[in-house]
């Protein structure tokens, strides 16, 4: 517990008055959180549009897509995309979604806005670093977008950028010249921003908790952001040098990832001594923890929100936090499960397989705790709570396929098939975004002082929930049939009979994507026209609901917040209500 007034005073700064300081280069964590959210929102719609284009091409390869030739006359002459343009869209889709959406929205956006408030602080520990994190991230985004417009085309080596394809330059084909360099520069910049952000989250959690806010009283969401920050600090610290080495291989003639004797475009490449597998080790040492960077904040958000609408405590809050920590710890021991068929020593397979399978234990416990929290609940069905329940369902679906891919013997067959695509989309993308949707419907009133439209929110849920199952469940079947991923067309004899399944998925993807515009409309409309929100519309306990909606510049209007209870006091008898606020000094009696 840290409630020295000196520590608080050190972080006080006056409310800004100029437009630029208030809304653009703001030091206020709430504004920065909203900036991250806005960037993620822009990125997710770009990423979704790219997936639409890819899906249309996979279902109907010869069909000209209107206006696509305007976007890239070379990449899509007459609106029909070339194989390399397909790979560009795929690379950009993966990169934008993983880095600028799944890392930004649940962690940087909501974490920035709500971590300080949930622990009773006035701001992040380092407000200037915080502002810098966002603008550095934004710079990374601009650099990535610039890759769309270079003459050689955007990068085509996938979000994993495997060397030597990503390292040797334009001799490897179109999309591997300047576009690929911009990709590596953008990701390196993104790493710097993430490291700054992670440090800030860790320092804030450890140093700025208000009086009474012991670690045990921190809400699950704050715990998840904290654990994620620790994972980020270690993960991006490895990806950053890896990207720098990749950039050096590309522009400075080094050979970190390029061995001798490679011939591309009939030219013997002037490199020697590098290791192709080194890139894969460095990338996946970051890449697997990155999965948890994407999903843990959403797990925390759901653990935080579900009890509010179940009107009963989360089953085993401490166990849930323990599981998050265990998962974060184990996430560093499993990277090799991405490399079972990579040619690394076959003796290492079990070394990576067993910890991977062990991760399913904390993840199973978390899932069961969430299901157990629904047991005997007096559920209030809102858009937020529906997305929490949907989260549990898709998290089960996505997690369970991990059992297959974690086993080297089965991975021999399923590696690089659509089974993998189904797995990571369910468990990392869809589950994480369900957490973001739940968080948005739940916290929007606090962030903007207005309620979102519940009818539209529920409609958005039903369409999205059915839609994601129609998109991603059939991908398991495709994978079992040996359908290889990252193909721009299916020309192999055994793949041609599977094309009707792809058409079904494409239609589902278009409809599910269209449903997201209901969400976008709801966001914009409610921002200006939604009914005014009260201080605590959901009858929740945590500190963000003990201040105005939206909170004042210093979060609590100059009050020094003292915390008396944990965040989990639902379903208790308390003066005619069934919950006790964290700031409420009243004694809690069992109901």
């Amino acid at each position: 517990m840290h409630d020295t007034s000196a520590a608080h005073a050190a972080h006080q700064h006056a409310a800004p008055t100029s437009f630029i300081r208030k809304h653009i280069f703001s030091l206020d964590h709430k504004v920065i959180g909203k900036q991250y959210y806005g960037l993620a929102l822009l990125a997710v719609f770009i990423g979704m549009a790219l997936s639409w284009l890819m899906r249309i091409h996979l279902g109907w390869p010869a069909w000209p897509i209107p206006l696509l030739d305007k976007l890239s006359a070379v990449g899509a002459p007459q609106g029909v995309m070339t194989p390399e343009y397909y790979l560009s869209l795929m690379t950009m889709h993966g990169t934008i979604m993983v880095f600028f959406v799944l890392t930004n929205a649940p962690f940087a956006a909501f974490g920035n806005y709500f971590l300080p408030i949930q622990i009773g602080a006035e701001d992040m520990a380092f407000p200037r670093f915080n502002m810098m994190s966002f603008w550095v991230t934004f710079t990374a985004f601009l650099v990535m977008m610039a890759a769309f417009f270079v003459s050689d085309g955007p990068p085509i080596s996938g979000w994993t950028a495997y060397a030597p394809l990503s390292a040797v330059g334009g001799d490897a084909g179109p999309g591997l010249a300047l576009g690929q360099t911009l990709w590596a520069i953008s990701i390196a910049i993104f790493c710097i921003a993430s490291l700054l952000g992670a440090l800030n989250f860790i320092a804030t959690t450890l140093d700025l908790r208000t009086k009474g806010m012991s670690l045990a009283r921190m809400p699950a969401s704050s715990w998840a952001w904290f654990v994620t920050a620790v994972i980020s600090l270690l993960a991006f610290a490895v990806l950053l040098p890896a990207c720098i080495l990749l950039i050096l291989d590309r522009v400075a003639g080094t050979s970190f990832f390029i061995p001798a004797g490679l011939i591309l475009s009939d030219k013997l490449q002037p490199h020697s001594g590098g290791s192709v597998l080194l890139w894969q080790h460095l990338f996946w040492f970051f890449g697997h923890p990155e999965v948890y960077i994407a999903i843990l904040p959403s797990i925390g958000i759901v653990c935080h929100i579900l009890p509010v609408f179940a009107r009963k405590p989360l089953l085993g809050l401490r166990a849930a936090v323990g599981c998050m920590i265990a998962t974060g710890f184990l996430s560093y021991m499993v990277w090799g499960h991405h490399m079972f068929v990579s040619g690394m020593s076959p003796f290492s397979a079990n070394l990576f397989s067993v910890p991977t399978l062990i991760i399913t234990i904390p993840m199973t416990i978390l899932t069961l705790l969430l299901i157990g929290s629904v047991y005997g609940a007096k559920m209030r069905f809102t858009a937020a709570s529906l997305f929490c329940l949907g989260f549990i369902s898709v998290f089960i679906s996505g997690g369970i396929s991990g059992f297959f891919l974690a086993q080297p013997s089965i991975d021999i067959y399923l590696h690089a098939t659509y089974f993998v695509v189904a797995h990571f989309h369910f468990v990392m993308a869809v589950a994480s975004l369900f957490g973001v949707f739940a968080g948005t419907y739940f916290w929007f009133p606090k962030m903007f002082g207005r309620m979102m439209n519940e009818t539209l929110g529920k409609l958005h849920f039903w369409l999205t929930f059915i839609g994601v199952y129609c998109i991603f469940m059939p991908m398991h079947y495709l994978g079992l049939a040996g359908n290889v991923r990252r193909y721009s067309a299916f020309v192999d004899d055994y793949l041609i009979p599977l094309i009707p399944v792809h058409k079904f998925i494409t239609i589902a993807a278009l409809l599910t994507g269209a449903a997201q515009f209901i969400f976008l409309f709801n966001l914009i409309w409610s921002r200006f026209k939604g009914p005014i929100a009260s201080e605590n519309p959901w009858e929740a306990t945590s500190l963000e609901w003990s201040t105005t909606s939206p909170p004042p510049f210093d979060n609590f209007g100059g009050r020094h917040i003292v915390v008396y209870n944990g965040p989990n006091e639902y379903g208790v008898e308390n003066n005619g209500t069934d919950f006790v606020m964290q700031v409420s000094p009243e004694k809690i009696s069992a109901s």
Partner: protein
Amino acid sequence: MGKLFAVLVIVIALVSVSFFVRHTWWMPTDISTTGAAIDHQLDETMIETGLLFLAGQLVLGLFVWQASNKNPARKIKIFPGGSKPVVIAAIFVVGIEILALTFIGSKAWAAVNIAPAAADSLHIDVQAEQFAFYFRYAGPDGQFGGLHPDKIDDGNGNYFGLDPANDVAARDDVVVGSLVVPVNHPILLTLHSKDVGHSFYVPVLRIQQDFVPGLEIPVHFTATQTGKFEIVCTQLCGLGHYNMKAYLQVMSEPDYEQWLKSQEGQ
């Protein structure tokens, strides 16, 4: 609202599982000596995780159904025993499953990737490049010629960089675009890449192995049925990745011998 969710989640679970149970889309028939163990492992995992999947979704649906009861007099209920039985059950059930899967699965993995190739294996050299596979047989002398990257010349069909002018062993090497093997005969492949990463995926053999530039990677298998099957690339290698393929032709021993002779004559 809650009842709708409960029904929906149960319907989704049952429909999803039904396609797995009916094998509507499934693995092609295995034609290798090592594939049966992999298939068995996959079937085991499918049954165990299928049951967990169904149980998870059905219980979720059931609890949500109950939680939507609007009776105002109803009191909330805490899960019997709290979180402890949940944690213990998860550790034991999943822990035992992990141990079982690992012990059995390790054998399937070892048979493919750790066990050495049989001594009498037919050795075939495989080179991958953007966007083709090439296969090299040692010829009558049983010796492979040395590789010289500087001599690679696709225009003249010298995909491997052989030097027949100076290298006697290289003169009778047979280089073809299809992998032709005798049935029921152990085969040892050596994979190497000319340019970027590729992968050697033969679904009917249950084999997938990357080509890694700078490394030579051994792969062994025995095909148990004659026929023509597809080999595809599964490691993103550039614009023509989707179209990078070759055929595996499994022949009877006499047919194979005849085929090899006809190639040697060319």
